């Protein structure tokens, strides 16, 4: 491998059009991606169809049907769907407010740059932040207690809805960042045309605004779904990684750090399942984005 990467820098002239030399220029990139991304991923996908004696089998895939696996997939999908819709809704409305909602420009810039930070503020520290807010000793919990509302034990930060509230924190800014340009692409003339034909605000949104924005809204929501589905650190910190390891990512993590599940094939199948679900979400997102780009162009 080493000589390949070095010859590139010593390659003498522009005029030599030899195909092999041209490809050497991008060889380091492909070698890197192959070693650290493609080969491991392909090998996991391949191994999910092999048993321990390396014979072809569907056993690992069938293992996915075990009740605790199915329930963890269902849990992850529900969590991702709820936070994608909740975060998408709030983020979409916020993006609307700061773009065509007519809020002052400094406010718009502040929200956008804050969203840049907040969409990166996830994982372990985000979990800490919510423990300090809504945990048993949390500031909001204690404040509510002082006015006579006790959250616990009815609510718990470590339950499904607790996780939802935490996840939505990183879902909203992502939605804002992606949807703000889409809202800004809406032309003023469309609204004026609708109004000159006698449409009121609601009718404009129902028949013009929403149909135009729908592909971007749906596409971004799908992206948020994938975003939540792949999340591991936040859930790990909040659930302790074991006691209620309901999220699929935690199950996979447990496969590396322990032999608790004692089934090597299962980890491969779990990973394959995640890749398929993420791939479908990203594919859907790309398709819906293209659709909306075409609509906005014409």
């Amino acid at each position, binding site marked *: 491998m080493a000589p390949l990467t070095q010859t590139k*820098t*010593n390659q003498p002239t522009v005029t030599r059009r030899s195909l092999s030399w041209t490809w050497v220029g*991008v060889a*380091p990139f*492909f070698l*890197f*991606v192959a*070693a*650290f991304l493609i080969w*491991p*991923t392909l*090998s*996991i996908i391949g191994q999910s169809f092999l048993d321990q004696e390396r014979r072809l089998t569907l056993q690992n895939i069938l293992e996915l049907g075990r009740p605790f696996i199915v329930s963890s997939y269902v849990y992850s999908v529900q969590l991702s769907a709820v936070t994608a819709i909740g975060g998408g809704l709030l983020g979409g*409305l916020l993006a609307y*407010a*700061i773009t065509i*909602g*007519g*809020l002052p420009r400094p*406010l718009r810039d502040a*929200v956008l740059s804050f969203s*840049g*930070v907040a*969409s*990166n*503020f*996830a*994982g*372990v*520290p985000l*979990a*800490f*932040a919510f*423990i*300090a*807010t809504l945990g048993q000793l*949390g*500031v909001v919990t204690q404040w509510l207690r002082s006015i006579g509302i006790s959250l616990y034990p009815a609510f718990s930060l470590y339950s499904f809805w607790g996780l939802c509230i935490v996840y939505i*924190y*990183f879902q*909203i800014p992502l939605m804002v*960042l992606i949807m703000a340009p889409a809202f800004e692409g809406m032309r003023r003339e469309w609204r004026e045309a609708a109004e000159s034909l006698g449409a009121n605000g609601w009718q404009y949104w129902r028949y013009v605004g929403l149909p135009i924005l729908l592909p971007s809204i749906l596409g971004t929501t799908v992206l948020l779904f994938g975003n939540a589905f*792949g*999340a*591991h*650190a936040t859930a*790990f*910190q909040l659930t302790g990684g074991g006691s209620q390891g309901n999220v699929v*990512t935690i199950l*996979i*993590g447990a*496969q*590396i*750090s322990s032999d608790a599940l004692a089934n090597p094939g299962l*980890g491969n199948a779990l990973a394959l399942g*995640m*890749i398929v679900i*993420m*791939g479908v979400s*990203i594919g859907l997102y790309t398709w819906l984005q293209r659709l909306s780009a075409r609509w906005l162009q014409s």
Partner: protein
Amino acid sequence: MLKRFWPWFWFLVGAAYFLVPLYATFDFSLRARRGELSFAAYTSVLNDVRFVESFMFSLQTALATIVISALVIVPTAYWVQLRLPRLRPVIEFFTLLPFVVPAVVLVFSLARTYSRTPLTDSREGLWVLLVGSYVILSFPYMYRAVDTGLRSINIHDLTEAAQSLGAGWFTILTRVIFPNVYVALLSGAFITFAIVMGEFTIAALLAQPAFGPYMNRLASSKVYEPSALAIISFALTWAAIAAIQWFGQGTQARVAGPR
């Protein structure tokens, strides 16, 4: 007036969702001493030897990641624009793959694929795997930043001018291309820095003494220090993002972060 009601309403709802947890975290972090507000939790965190060690470890890892990523991405992006424009969609596809393969799946497949090789059987090997996965995670941001930077300069003219003066490829890359994409590279570097410093999943599963796993462990032994650390981490992220916007092309700071 009514026309502006809903935008303001949704803005305030959003602001509350964002700011209340931050306020609560900050408030909580000041309560380490009973009955008074103090920065005791912060001093206790900053004086912790393991904090310094894990922070330095992640800092070194982040710098290594940025250097390797730059060394791979700049020549690739340059070469693709100069010679292989048809390859651009392919490279873009590969740099987007980290979004499809979640970090936990990536580290799982790396650990499985390279198990019983020096990569997983030694401390140094695991660190190589760690840096390698971080470089992969950095590709989407690095490639986009550098590609945009290269588009804003005329690399064909620059390359020809350098060649007519007798420069070889090494000279062209180090003395013409790198200095010209320096600013774009920096914005990619800061986002990579923010990602690596807070990353938990890969570091924890490869059993590396990084900052993310340290934060995770702190929670089981301390009450107030974790929230102080969350505030420090938020400030750090903010500084990295502010640096990106400072160096232009602020819109690069998009989809990111260890979740």
